[in-house]
């Protein structure tokens, strides 16, 4: 993949907690980025009727997810500010991680944030992480997300999106096919990622037609929110706090990798897609439909469009960018990128009306229905 290597820092915090973090980032010169609304899920023990039968139900909380593209040398500074201002070192306050992406092309106002890095600091970060992203029909998200909770992997973040693809070639009949999607993202240890992914595939029946898509992508480092259940601990520390602390001491989660946690259901026989690219195009509101159409003409199979808000200082040149933004995620083969880029360029994806931003990251393993 050509393009400049930059770092993408992405964090999820409780709704309302993002503002102070964004302010501190702005003060450090990391000022343009994107914000999305999402929800996090956790398990809560509920007593049944008359106190009979206890079961854990899923409870949902609103969260805010913000992401910034920064030059690689600024990555640690950004992580440090986010962790410090958002108090993410405390378990249950949220999660943050960074990943290396290839910035293929962008409008000048939307390029990565760069500047002087703050002096090095010791950060309580885990490495050897693998991101898992799963796109399912609206309403199916909790079932898949629950896998991440039940395996103790982490608290997943769920966002909404709209699918495009075959649907848009149907004329008005398209309204009969629900386009609303849920996107579940989570961070797992590289050692567990395959097993978790298989369990998620089972839970969402993702290898059956029309159910969804799941893929892995490497993460560089970060803090994983492992506070998967709600309620007061019965001991001086909850088991989640203990795990989190050992994770931090060890610097990774290999010590608790469970080889026995495998799909019971044909995980071995499953066919995966390999070596794809997760291509993300962010543009001004209203342009996504047309741009995805062009990308599809150049070979992309479809896209998931979600709504973002542009984060920027009001008094900078970046205020020319529309505050309402759309992000289009496409999974493509690496060899398709030049054609897609050419086509997007042709329809003005990077002009002053669209303020486009295109980056890609590797998706080494993916799964969906592959036909018979």
């Amino acid at each position, binding site marked *: 993949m050509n393009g400049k290597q930059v770092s993408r820092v992405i964090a999820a915090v409780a709704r309302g907690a993002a503002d102070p973090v964004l302010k501190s980032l702005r003060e450090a010169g990391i000022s343009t980025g994107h*914000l999305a609304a999402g*929800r996090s899920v956790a398990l809560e023990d509920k007593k049944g009727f008359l106190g009979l039968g206890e079961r854990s139900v899923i409870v949902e909380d*609103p969260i805010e997810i913000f992401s910034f593209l920064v030059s690689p040398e600024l990555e640690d500074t950004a992580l440090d500010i986010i962790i*410090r201002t958002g108090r993410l070192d405390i378990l249950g306050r949220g999660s943050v991680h960074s990943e290396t992406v290839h910035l293929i092309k962008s409008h000048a106002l939307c390029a990565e944030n760069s500047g002087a890095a703050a002096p090095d600091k010791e950060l309580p970060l885990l490495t050897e992480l693998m991101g898992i992203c799963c796109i399912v029909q609206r309403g199916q998200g909790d079932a898949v997300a629950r896998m991440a909770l039940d395996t103790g992997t982490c608290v997943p973040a*769920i966002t*909404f999106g709209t699918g495009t693809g075959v649907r848009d070639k149907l004329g008005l009949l398209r*309204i009969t096919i629900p386009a609303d999607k849920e996107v579940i993202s989570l961070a797992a240890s590289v050692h567990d990622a395959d097993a978790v992914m298989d369990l998620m595939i089972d839970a969402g029946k993702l290898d059956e037609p029309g159910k969804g898509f799941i893929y892995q992508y490497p993460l560089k480092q970060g803090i994983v929110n492992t506070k998967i259940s709600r309620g007061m601990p019965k001991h001086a520390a909850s088991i989640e706090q203990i795990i989190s602390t050992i994770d931090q001491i060890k610097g990774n989660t290999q010590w608790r990798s469970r080889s026995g946690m495998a799909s019971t259901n044909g995980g071995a026989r499953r066919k995966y897609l390999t070596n794809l690219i997760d291509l993300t195009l962010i543009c001004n509101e209203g342009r996504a439909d047309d741009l995805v159409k062009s990308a599809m003409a*150049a070979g992309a199979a479809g896209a998931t469009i979600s709504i973002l808000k542009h984060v920027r200082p009001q008094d900078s040149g970046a205020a020319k960018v529309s*505050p309402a933004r759309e992000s289009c995620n496409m999974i*493509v083969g690496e060899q398709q990128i030049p054609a897609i880029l050419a086509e997007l360029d042709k329809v003005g994806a990077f002009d002053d009306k669209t303020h486009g931003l295109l980056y890609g990251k590797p998706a080494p393993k993916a799964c969906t229905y592959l036909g018979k």
Partner: protein
Amino acid sequence: MDNQQQTGGKIKVGFKQGMAMLFPYAKSRLIEQVKSVALIIIYLIFFQTMVLGIAVAQAAMIAAGLALVIGGLAFFMEGLMLGLMPLGEVIGLKLPQKSKLPVILGFSFILGMGATFAEPAISVLKAAGSSVRPWDAPLLFLLLNKFSGYLVMSVGVGVGIAVVFGMIRFMYNISLKPFIYILLSFLLLFTLWSFFNANMRNVTGLAWDCGAVTTGPVTVPLVLALGIGICRVVGAAGSGSSGFGVVTLASLFPIISVLLLGASLSGTVPQPMSEAAFFSAANRDKAQALFTSREEMIGFAFQNAKRESQLALFDGSSEKMIAYLESLKSSEKERAAVFGPKRDALEKWAATKGTRTQAMAVFPSAEAAREAAQKYAAMLEDPVQPADLILRNTKAAAQAIIPLSIFFLLVLTLILRERLPRADEVFLGLGFAVFGMMLFSIGIEIGLSKLGNQVGGKVPSSFKAIELPEQRSTINKFDPDIVKTAITADGETQTFFYVREKTGYRQLPYHEDQYSPETSQYNYTPTRGPLFGAEGGLTGILVVLVFAFILGYGATLAEPALNALGLTVEELTVGAFKKSLLMQAVALGVGVGIAVGVAKIIWNIPLLWLMGPPYILLLIITKISTEEFVNIGWDSAGVTTGPITVPLVLAMGLGIGGQVGVVEGFGILSMASVCPILSVLCVGLMVTRKRKAALQEASETAEPKEVAA
């Protein structure tokens, strides 16, 4: 990945394949609506047949109507999602980016005014005030009849100003709370003042209900979508899950504007007085000022006033009145002025309401009068005319949706110079919305509202004896000599007679005024109740209150505007605040509110006593709630009273009001507005506390590590 799919162009779908796609789509939408209305329908039928023990009249028509309601709601909701809401949102997105503040505010004002004229709630209010008598409440009567145009205008101005302030709030990111504090304090003081003015006291109920009723199923989604669009491009850095609050303002401002209108007119109308004084010659000019013409006043008196009052209009001369009635027979123009445009209105009135001499003046012979009496007694209601029904409702639906949509499209193309994204989908959606609204309006008229009327009218039978006019029967060739006299333990005498029925003999009470010596007919109207406890007993009233609660609860769940609000809230919180939780909270609130409103009517409690405490409580809860829930909670109050709830609630309110004899049926709807705010805010407080606790648990139990240098 496999990329050999065809790119660009359309996929051709055959008819069979198309149907295979349409069928599950239509099915899922219909099932959703069946679920939303099932509770209220099953409950109404159950209550009428099982609790009250009365068979459902016109069952086939009602069933057809209910089917139309379900189909109509399915189309309408889909139309909202595909057409109206995307249209509102795209304007909201483009307007702040492409135009200056004055343009936005001008647009907002026109939108508010236009929405009011498009969905005139005045018919609802007129229904609520249909039993208002000009001598009891002159100002209220004036506003609902002669000056109803002014009333709609003042509501329109109120909503217009509300939308303007709503937009200013979004643009400058102002909290909703100060608006609520200021408006509400002002309103409560104004209402308190009105309480001590005999004329204004009756108008307060109307004003508060105006606020509740104005925000209809088209306005709410449109304004919500607009607000959400605007909030996506303006405002602070927060992920902007706001966009709510306009509905709240659109519920509060019209109350003020209507109260102001009432206050400005209150000097010109006479004080409430007795019926006799109202029709006396001394007050003639003042009284007639409440009507558009002398003819209208005469018509009203014929329909609603006592015989002496009618005579008073003709200087106490019976001959003059008879001569006047006879002159009406020949002059079609004058007849229309007195009795309205329906051709047989005069005959119908003479046959059903007129005295014997009045009937003789209208009909050529006693025989004709008797035939007419039988004919009109058989049809208590006007028969349904399908063509008229469809035409009227299509017109209303088109009027509610099309002008506003055209206004939006014009603003988008002419002022903002933007293209409408997914235009085909939006137009299809608008078509769905009009069609759906027409279907469900028809369905409500011939189905739900009829069912509601039947149950609502009979509900008082649980605590008092009521007449069952649709079971009225006429005994021809009645002989008064068979009437017997019975005596109670206290020595009071009552008259009765026996009738022979298929299975035996039955006593019926005898009322002299039901017997007509000319025709020798006796009209018998059976009565029913009290079913629970004694006449006027508490048990029976409790049954009514429970009925009212469940009615409010069930009807609210079916309300389209609330469904749209719930979906929007769920969408904006990415599912963290579930639609079902909001709807349950609102429905509970509405149920309680309607039960309280019914209690108001039964015991004739002044509205101030009922509105004051909850609103003062609300001020406090609003203060301690988060901005998010204040917006959602107050907005849900505005959307609760829609096309499903209003006819059912009014039917019940008027049924009960008519049986216990109160001036007007106002106030129930405003109670149904205040209680859901309370319930949603309480749920909000609970949810917020839980979330705070979860976060605090995280920060307190963990030992903060030294991360910062």
